[in-house]
């Protein structure tokens, strides 16, 4: 069932499906236990259950989108996209989940960046998928005794390679080597990105798959003094000339 792209990297791989399946156990478990606790205590937090269910549905949707984009790249409509607008919408989609996990979202889109060429739906799905994974991971990374507010920054900045859109936090650095190692370990390990997340990292690998299908790369990135993951997009020069 695995389809290989040039260079031998499976896109439609059983290991991604396995990763997504493992990851989905978590929100279903959360819902089951929250419902049981609600029954025991006589009061159920329906907002929390809803946020969990919505997040799980998004993961599935984003996985399906990644698979479809990989299968039918010719169907991918490339358009002129405002990165700030994509990040803003990403923040909206992640808001409920972030609140459940006690993570504040901060949008850093200062500066004027022209539009980029991208498949908007794919780019947003990748960032939402990545964001959900990082939101779940941040409290798990929290060191002993730190009561400080956890924050995830949705940010864009210009680099010499193009316009970077990514998600960042004041956390330990993720290197490109660790990310690549995680990709290789995906079929061998329950926690291929163990220094980043306690889960199978499905959200990160789904984002990886979507971006690969769009001929973009998920990379380790830095924004001011924050570390995170992002992708480099190319400005739409044609529009800028007009």
């Amino acid at each position: 069932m695995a389809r290989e792209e040039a260079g031998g990297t499976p896109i439609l791989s059983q290991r991604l499906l396995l990763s997504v399946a493992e990851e989905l156990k978590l929100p279903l478990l959360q819902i089951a236990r929250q419902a049981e606790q609600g029954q025991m205590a006589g009061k159920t937090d329906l907002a929390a259950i809803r946020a969990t269910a919505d997040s799980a549905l998004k993961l599935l949707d984003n996985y399906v989108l990644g698979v479809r984009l990989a299968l039918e790249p010719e169907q991918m409509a490339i358009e002129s996209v405002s990165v700030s607008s994509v990040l803003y919408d990403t923040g909206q989609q992640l808001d409920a989940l972030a609140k459940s996990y006690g993570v504040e979202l901060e949008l850093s889109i200062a500066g004027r960046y022209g539009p980029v060429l991208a498949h908007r739906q794919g780019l947003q799905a990748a960032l939402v998928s990545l964001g959900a994974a990082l939101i779940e991971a941040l409290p798990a990374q929290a060191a002993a005794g730190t009561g400080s507010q956890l924050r995830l920054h949705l940010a864009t900045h210009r680099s010499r390679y193009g316009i970077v859109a990514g998600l960042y936090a004041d956390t330990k650095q993720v290197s490109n080597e660790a990310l690549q190692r995680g990709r290789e370990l995906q079929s061998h390990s329950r926690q291929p990105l163990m220094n980043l997340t306690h889960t199978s990292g499905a959200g990160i690998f789904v984002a990886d798959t979507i971006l690969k299908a769009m001929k973009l790369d998920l990379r380790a990135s830095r924004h001011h003094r924050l570390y995170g993951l992002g992708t480099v997009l190319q400005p739409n020069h044609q529009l800028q000339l007009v």
Partner: protein
Amino acid sequence: MAQILLVEPDRLLAETYSQALTGAGHKVMIAPGAQAAISAADTARPDLVILELQLVEHSGIEFLYEFRSYPEWQDIPVLIHSGVPAGEFTDSWQIMGQELGVDVYLYKPRTSLSQLISTVRDQLSVPA
């Protein structure tokens, strides 16, 4: 009433389990990872540890080796409550149980809150 150290990396699950255990009359300290768990145990000696094996940076087994290296914590019951299916451990479970002083392994997806609460009660009533 017992002091329980809950080593659970997922915040939502940690809150739910904590509420259930508190409702059953226990006091709960939540630690998301190995280092936080060692610090928490240092601050207030737990009567029992509930441990997820899949943590960030250090595995639950790594934590348990360190935890058991402290003589004052060697007899504290540890209950594994993990998303890793117990069936995967098969033969190695015997060594792990003996090596790390673990008597109970609960697979999270198949363990309800009431089962967790009653297992905790059973573990606490076993003489050290």
